[in-house]
């Protein structure tokens, strides 16, 4: 989805706070452990969690720290999976508990096709309402495959609890100046791209 979480290349942000000031919030390790627990118990998978974070109300997403995003996803998925309700959570918490927005339909993977290392590929001009792991900054852009991964579950299906076929991802190398012409630092940008997001570029 074209959400505010898709931050790559967005402008107006400032200096990175580095080094990051130490802080010690006891609720954060608890959220980390509970998230691991929910996934080990197969209440949801990693892509469902990521999509639940993406579905956070945009103002909430932008304001929330990392583990608040995880907590919101966890609570939202527990509600969606029927383990609790918002009302119960709010009663237990003694206050308002903002959850993620509703989930829509996922989508199937594209028919299998293989790309070779060294091959020039294009990222499809796809607009996906649900979970998708192609960042907007590579949409429609052309790059070269530099590496291939073992197969993973296709996230656009897995993120919606659908049966997800396994497919490889490709580390695709783009030139920054092809992504943001005249408006970037020179670099080679690599993105891990699922096979279904790619199309062949005919030799020119």
């Amino acid at each position: 989805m074209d959400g505010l979480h898709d931050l790559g290349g967005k402008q107006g942000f400032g200096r990175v706070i580095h080094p990051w000031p130490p802080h010690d919030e006891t609720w954060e390790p608890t959220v980390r452990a509970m998230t691991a627990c929910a996934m080990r118990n197969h209440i949801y998978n990693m892509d469902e969690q990521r999509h639940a974070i993406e579905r956070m109300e945009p103002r909430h997403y932008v304001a929330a720290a990392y583990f608040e995003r995880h907590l919101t996803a966890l609570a939202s998925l527990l509600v969606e999976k029927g383990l609790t309700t918002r009302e119960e959570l709010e009663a237990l918490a003694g206050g308002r508990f903002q959850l993620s927005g509703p989930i829509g339909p996922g989508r199937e993977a594209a028919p299998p096709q293989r790309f070779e290392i060294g091959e020039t590929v294009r990222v499809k001009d796809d607009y996906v309402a649900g979970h998708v792991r192609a960042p907007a900054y590579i949409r429609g852009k052309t790059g070269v495959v530099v590496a291939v991964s073992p197969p993973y579950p296709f996230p656009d299906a897995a993120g919606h609890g659908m049966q997800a076929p396994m497919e490889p991802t490709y580390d695709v190398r783009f030139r920054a100046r092809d992504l943001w012409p005249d408006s970037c630092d020179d670099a080679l940008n690599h993105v891990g791209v699922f096979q279904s997001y790619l199309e062949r570029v005919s030799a020119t």
Partner: protein
Amino acid sequence: MADHSGIQEAATLEQRTAAVELVLRRHGVLTDDFIHDFTEHADDAWVTANGARMVARAWTDPAFKARMLADGTGAAREMGFDFPEHHRHFVVLENTPDIHNVIVCTLCSCTAYTIIGAAPGWYKDLDYRARVVRESRTVLREMGLDLPESTEIRVWDTTADTRYMVLPVQPPATRGWPAERLAGIVTQDSLIGASRLDEVKG
């Protein structure tokens, strides 16, 4: 729509965390010691020292380095390190005097946390995620790493479930050090690519 759902005050993060914990306990999903045990394991086992030891060994053992660059997952397992189920592929990116690799996750904050330790706050913050892909040289300079124009920057966006780690260039002043001492100089920043260990003197 913003959350105008009620007059009710928002529960604090502590209250919300406690509420979720209660739900998981009531359903028997969360067992008594899980949070304690998981946290202890995460804090003890998933530490930057793991990646640092891999780097130090690669600097001192050319055959290991070759294996690590060919198969990062296998090299990590060889040293006794493990991965969560969804990290099926671990790739080590070699810096050279002329090439600098830097890792980000623009869509969330993915990282090889069992090997390099829990991601630092800045890696998970919006500013780094938004900017380092488009303004890599500028952002690195602001973070204290001023790369010469001749250095090629390679940015790696962790959008799939492959996980990356940078293999820094060994600081010249440390030539001949034993692996154990070398591991002590490898910082988490250098494993992400926010540093080249240039500050390390003999």
